[in-house]
């Protein structure tokens, strides 16, 4: 691949029924690019969790996926409330999701932990009242 392949998605903050749509599309595109299934699975999981987080907590945002020769970079940007305590949010099982969100099957407190677990690098840039940008990479052979 000579040039990077870039995908951009707007994530609708109102719509739980379409949440995950960008991840499903990325999965298909990566398959078309011939990326190995184990990398696709990791990117899909990390991106899905990020997408859901933006819908639950930040009223949506945007997702960019950049595929280069040696890595897949996922950049998730929102203008939501920010994360007050990142280390707490990184703990498995910690969740601030409301009951109506939990009744949909979300709010296990596994979102950020899953994103970290399934990527090689993850950086969280968050500011209260301004928003959050999460940058993740999955190295590909």
């Amino acid at each position, binding site marked *: 691949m000579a040039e990077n392949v870039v995908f951009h998605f707007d994530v609708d903050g109102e719509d739980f029924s379409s949440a995950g749509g960008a991840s499903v599309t990325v999965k298909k595109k990566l398959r078309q690019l011939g990326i190995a299934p184990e990398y696709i699975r990791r990117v899909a999981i990390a991106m899905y969790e990020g997408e859901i987080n933006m819908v639950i907590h930040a009223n949506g945002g945007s997702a960019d996926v950049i595929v280069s020769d040696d890595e897949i970079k996922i950049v998730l940007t929102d203008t939501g409330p920010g994360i007050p305590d990142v280390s707490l949010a990184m703990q498995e099982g910690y969740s601030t999701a409301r009951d109506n969100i939990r009744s949909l099957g979300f709010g296990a407190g596994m*979102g950020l932990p899953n994103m970290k677990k399934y990527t090689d690098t993850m950086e969280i840039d968050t500011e209260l009242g301004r928003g959050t940008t999460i940058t993740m990479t999955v190295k590909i052979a």
Partner: protein
Amino acid sequence: MLKMKLSDIINSLSLTVVVGDVERDLEGVYAGDFLSRAMSRVEAGDLWITIMNNVNVIAVASLTDAAAVLLAEDVSLMSDALEAAREKDVTVLSSGLSVYELCVALGKFGTAS
């Protein structure tokens, strides 16, 4: 590791096919309702047993490449989820048995992944 086709367990456990292809190989089983847990634990080719019936279940099943979603306790799929399952080629089965009863019944086929 299970090595059988979905159709084998459909016949054996008298499962209802809600939508989708049943000739897929079945590799293992996962049971649980939290989507993030399922997202990280369901492997490609697994049967995922749950009582969740909304459209997000279909997204997770599609992303994890699950062999099928098995809805326990006669839970029926919500209409937008059924539509999504058709679009994404996700197989959905259902049964009147509980999650526990289904796991016990599936145990005779071998150890899940």
